[in-house]
C-alpha cells in the first residue's frame, strides 16, 4: 500500500479481509458462505452483479419486527417525529389477509430495487438512480424534494424527510427535504457484509444474494422454487422476491 493511500484504504482493506475470511452465521447452528465479497478500493459497482433478496413469508412471524429495528439502528432512522404519517420508514412489516380465504400472513416490505424502477423514470433531475449492480438509490446531492418518485412507486417504499436531522450514521447520509428509501444497506454490501435486516432475521426468512450469479443460493432457489414478484403485473422486475404470498 503506497504511503499516499491513507487510513481510508486501510479501513477498506481490513474490511475486505474480515469478509473474505468469514462465514456469516444466519441463525444458530446454520452458517452460510459469504455471499458477496468486498469490492477492492477504486473499483466501480458492476453490471455483473445484481443484488437482490428472497423473502419467505412462511417463515416470517407476525409481530416480529427484528428486521425493522435492525434497519432503524443501522441507518439511524430514529428521529422523533410528531406526526407518525411523516415518519420515514425504509422497511416495514405488512400484515396481509386474503379477502377470499381469510389466510393471514406477514412480511417485510421495502424498496424492491426494480430493474425498471418507475421512481428513476419520473425523477426530474436524475437524483433517483439505479446503480450498475441494481441497487436503486437517491442521489441527495441533486434531489430537489419534489416527491414525484413517491407518487410513482407502487410499493410505497419511499419516505420524505420532513424535518432537520442531526444524528445520521456517518456512512448513511440522509437529511431534510430529500426523499429516501432502503439502500439495500449499500454501505455494508460494498464491504461484503449483509444488509442489516437480513443479518437480524433470526427466522432465516430473508436471503440476500446475487441474482446475476446462477450459482448463488438465491438464484438456485428462485430457479427451483415458486417465488412471487409483488405487483408482477407492472413488469418492473423487482430485485426483491417473495415466497408464500
Amino acid at each position, binding site marked *: 500500500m503506497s504511503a*499516499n493511500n*491513507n487510513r481510508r484504504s486501510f479501513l477498506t482493506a481490513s474490511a475486505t479481509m474480515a469478509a473474505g475470511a468469514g462465514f456469516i452465521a444466519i441463525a444458530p447452528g446454520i452458517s452460510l458462505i459469504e455471499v458477496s465479497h468486498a469490492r477492492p478500493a*477504486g*473499483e466501480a459497482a458492476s453490471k455483473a452483479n445484481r443484488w437482490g433478496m428472497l423473502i419467505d413469508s412462511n417463515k416470517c412471524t407476525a409481530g416480529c419486527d427484528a428486521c425493522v429495528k435492525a434497519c432503524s439502528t443501522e441507518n439511524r432512522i430514529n428521529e422523533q417525529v410528531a406526526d407518525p404519517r411523516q415518519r420515514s420508514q425504509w422497511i416495514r412489516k405488512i400484515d396481509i389477509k386474503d379477502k377470499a380465504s381469510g389466510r393471514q400472513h406477514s412480511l417485510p416490505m421495502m424498496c424492491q430495487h426494480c430493474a425498471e424502477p418507475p421512481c428513476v423514470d419520473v425523477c426530474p433531475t436524475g437524483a433517483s438512480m439505479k*446503480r450498475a449492480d441494481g441497487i436503486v438509490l437517491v442521489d441527495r*446531492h441533486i434531489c430537489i424534494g419534489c416527491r414525484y418518485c413517491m407518487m410513482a412507486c407502487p410499493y410505497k417504499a419511499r419516505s420524505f424527510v420532513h424535518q432537520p436531522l442531526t444524528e*445520521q450514521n456517518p456512512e448513511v447520509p440522509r*437529511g431534510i427535504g430529500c426523499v429516501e428509501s432502503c439502500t439495500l444497506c449499500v454501505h455494508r454490501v*460494498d464491504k461484503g457484509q449483509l444488509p442489516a435486516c437480513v443479518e437480524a432475521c433470526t427466522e432465516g426468512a430473508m436471503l440476500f444474494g446475487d441474482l446475476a450469479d446462477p450459482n448463488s443460493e438465491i438464484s438456485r432457489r428462485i430457479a427451483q422454487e415458486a417465488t412471487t414478484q409483488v405487483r408482477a403485473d407492472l413488469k418492473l422486475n423487482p430485485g426483491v422476491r417473495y415466497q408464500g404470498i
Partner: protein
Amino acid sequence: MSRAFAFVATLLLAWPMMQSAHAGGVPKPSILIESPGTQCVAPPAEIRRNHMEMLKHQRNLTLREGVRGGKVSLNGCIECHASKKTGSVIGSNDNFCQSCHAYAAVKLDCWDCHQPKTGKAMPTSAAEAKP
C-alpha cells in the same frame, strides 16, 4: 443635483466603515489543525482552492458508480479535522469547516445530510442495538 449630493454624502458616511473592514474588521479565520504531522490528501493550497470540486467529483464516483475507498472522502476530512473538543467540523466558528465558510460567507450544504461528527464521537450502532 440633489441625487448627486445624496450619493456623495453616503460615500462620506460609509468611508470609515469601509476603512475598518480593510483594517481587519473581520478577522481571518484561524484554522486549527487538530492532528499536526499527518499527511493530507493534497497540499493545503490545492485543498483550499479545489476541495469542493474534489468532493463533488468523489461524491459522484462513490454514490452513482459505487467506487469506494477513494483518496478523497468527506468522512476522511472529518476524521482528521474535527475539533478534539466537540468531535465536529461545524457548530462553532472555531471548527474546521465553519471557520472558513463563515469568513467567506459560503453556505454549507453538506451537513444537512452528512454527519459532521467523527464516527468516534457518535454512539456506535452496536451499542444502540442493545435494548
